[in-house]
């Protein structure tokens, strides 16, 4: 490839979710240069959109705040948002990443004063809330956005409204001429922390996700429960805005299923236990039914499971439902067999939450570079080879929870540093 090129000591981290942020911070704090590339307009990835973590029920933004402060204070760490990696070539010590940046239409002059948003009229789907709400076409991605910088939605580009938005900015921060750009980035090692997306619940046709507004998935529930989500943190039925008090959780919605995701996504059981806790905290009379095959509360999570299990208003029903349909009153009806009691049921709920699993963002179509090993699901395995220079962290490396993601990110940081040291 580029044999003559000097070896790079910089480490590129692809994806700025909790794993990417952790890996980048750990690299920088060990005294190495790092470039953190994020596809979206702000950092934090999936966890920013979570209300709380299991099992402590603490808030993801708390740890992110610490990490962001570390980023702000560390000159070795450079963040590039709106940047997607198109390809990686080269070998250890000598990689070249092709990076494409999408326009944000807002440059670094932005002070986040919000004047642009005040004049914007068009509302666009809010990607941060998984489309559950709408947001002005000039917007701050969310209250904890880092970098704290606005975005102008591509939908209004080329309209008079865009010019109005531009005119509203006193600091010359709105740049409507921004275009997609591609550049090459040299790195001595690469950490893939590209994370995951929720499995498309619509693909599980029998669970009615498309057909009934009161059948939602688990990441959407996180937004409903979050204080800065579309309902201000109240868990309400999307259909009529009434409190969701009788709620079913359907475990393994997609996971552990050869027709969908053959693997267990590991986090969904715990997520539903956590959601049961949200509901029970919000509504004293909430009743929660969790339909499951196995509750996989791994290691210390079993204490959390016990805690939720001891709540008489949370029921555990060992059953994978056959189908979920809209009942005569429009409420979702969960149908199936209670396996332990051997009873056929048709149970109505205010809200049904599909505990969908995690799909690696890289996906099955991702062509792994030569020094990376990928499994058939699209997870990029943590490297074991001694001469590799590309590593994976977080859910890019397998279906794992946040604690394991940060653990894997710290390990990946070490391996990447070793790679650039070895050159």
């Amino acid at each position: 490839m580029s044999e003559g090129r000097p070896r790079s000591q910089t480490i590129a981290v692809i994806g700025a979710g909790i794993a990417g942020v952790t890996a980048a911070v750990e690299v920088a704090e060990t005294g190495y240069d790092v470039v953190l590339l994020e596809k979206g307009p702000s950092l934090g990835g999936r966890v920013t959109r979570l209300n709380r973590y299991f099992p402590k029920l603490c808030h993801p933004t708390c740890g992110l705040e610490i990490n962001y402060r570390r980023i702000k204070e560390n000159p070795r760490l450079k963040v590039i948002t709106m940047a997607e990696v198109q390809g990686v070539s080269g070998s250890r010590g000598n990689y070249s990443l092709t990076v494409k940046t999408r326009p944000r239409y807002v440059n670094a002059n932005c002070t986040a004063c919000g004047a642009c948003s005040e004049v914007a009229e068009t509302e666009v789907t809010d990607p941060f809330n998984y489309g559950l709400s709408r947001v002005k076409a000039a917007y701050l991605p969310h209250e904890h956005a880092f970098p704290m910088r606005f975005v102008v939605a591509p939908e209004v580009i080329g309209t008079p409204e865009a010019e109005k938005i531009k005119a509203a900015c006193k600091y010359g921060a709105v740049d409507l001429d921004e275009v997609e750009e591609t550049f090459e980035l040299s790195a001595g090692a690469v950490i893939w922390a590209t994370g995951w997306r929720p499995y498309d619940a619509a693909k599980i046709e029998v669970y009615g996700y498309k057909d009934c507004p009161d059948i939602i998935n688990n990441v959407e529930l996180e937004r409903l429960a979050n204080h800065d989500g579309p309902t201000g943190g109240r868990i309400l039925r999307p259909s009529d805005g009434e409190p969701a008090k009788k709620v079913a959780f359907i475990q393994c919605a997609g996971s552990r299923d050869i027709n969908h995701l053959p693997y267990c996504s590991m986090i969904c059981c715990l997520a539903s236990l956590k959601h049961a806790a949200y509901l029970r905290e919000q509504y004293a009379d909430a009743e929660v039914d969790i339909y499951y095959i196995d509750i996989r509360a791994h290691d210390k999570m079993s204490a959390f499971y016990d805690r939720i299990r001891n709540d008489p208003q949370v029921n555990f029903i060992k059953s994978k439902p056959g189908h979920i349909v809209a009942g005569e009153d429009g409420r979702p009806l969960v149908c199936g067999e209670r396996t332990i009691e051997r009873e056929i049921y048709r149970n109505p709920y205010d809200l049904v939450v599909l505990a969908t699993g995690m799909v690696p963002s890289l996906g099955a179509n991702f062509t792994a570079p030569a020094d990376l090993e990928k499994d058939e699901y699209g997870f990029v395995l943590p490297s074991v080879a001694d001469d590799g220079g590309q590593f994976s962290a977080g859910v890019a490396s397998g279906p794992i929870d946040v604690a394991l993601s940060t653990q894997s990110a710290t390990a990946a940081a070490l391996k990447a540093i070793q790679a650039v040291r070895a050159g």
Partner: protein
Amino acid sequence: MSVALPAEAERTYDLNFARWVYRNVNGGDKLSLCMQCGVCSGSCPIGTQMDYGPRKLFMMIRAGMKEEVLSSNTMWNCTSCYRCVVRCPRGVPVTYILQDLASKAVEFGYAKKEDNTRFSKAFWWSAKTFGRTDERLVTAKYYFSFGLVEGIRKGLGNLKIALGMIKAGRMHLGASHGVKDRKGLQAILKKAAEIEAREATES
């Protein structure tokens, strides 16, 4: 003809019957993958009319409950809608297994009185005799398998339907259609049965 059933199990979870099912029942080789999630029984259109439902039936197979399994009404209530097959997260071909369990129940004398036994026997008689299914004769044969009086009663119950069908030209009164080469067809079926019998004794 199938490989002989294993002897009565002396203890619960004797795996000999399960292994017999794995090896001799169509689709049985996938049965061990069942993780008892219940999606099959929960998806069944007339699952409420089943004594066990496929999921529990499969657990009973593992538990070695040969008599209960082969005497079950579960397979006779299968409408062959294949929902369980396409929904099973483990790819267990539930419908096929139930169909072949039904066949085995007939073969080993567990299901003499099932409606379905009578019907499938009538059906097979037509297929075997004419090479094609004659709906009128199959239906008649099925009704009369309950005995003359019961057969007439059942038949009369559906007389209106039959008359409607005749009127619409969808039920004929003449001689049965059939394949031209009946002899060849019967030879094939005879040979197939021979092969099965031969294999059953070999194993």
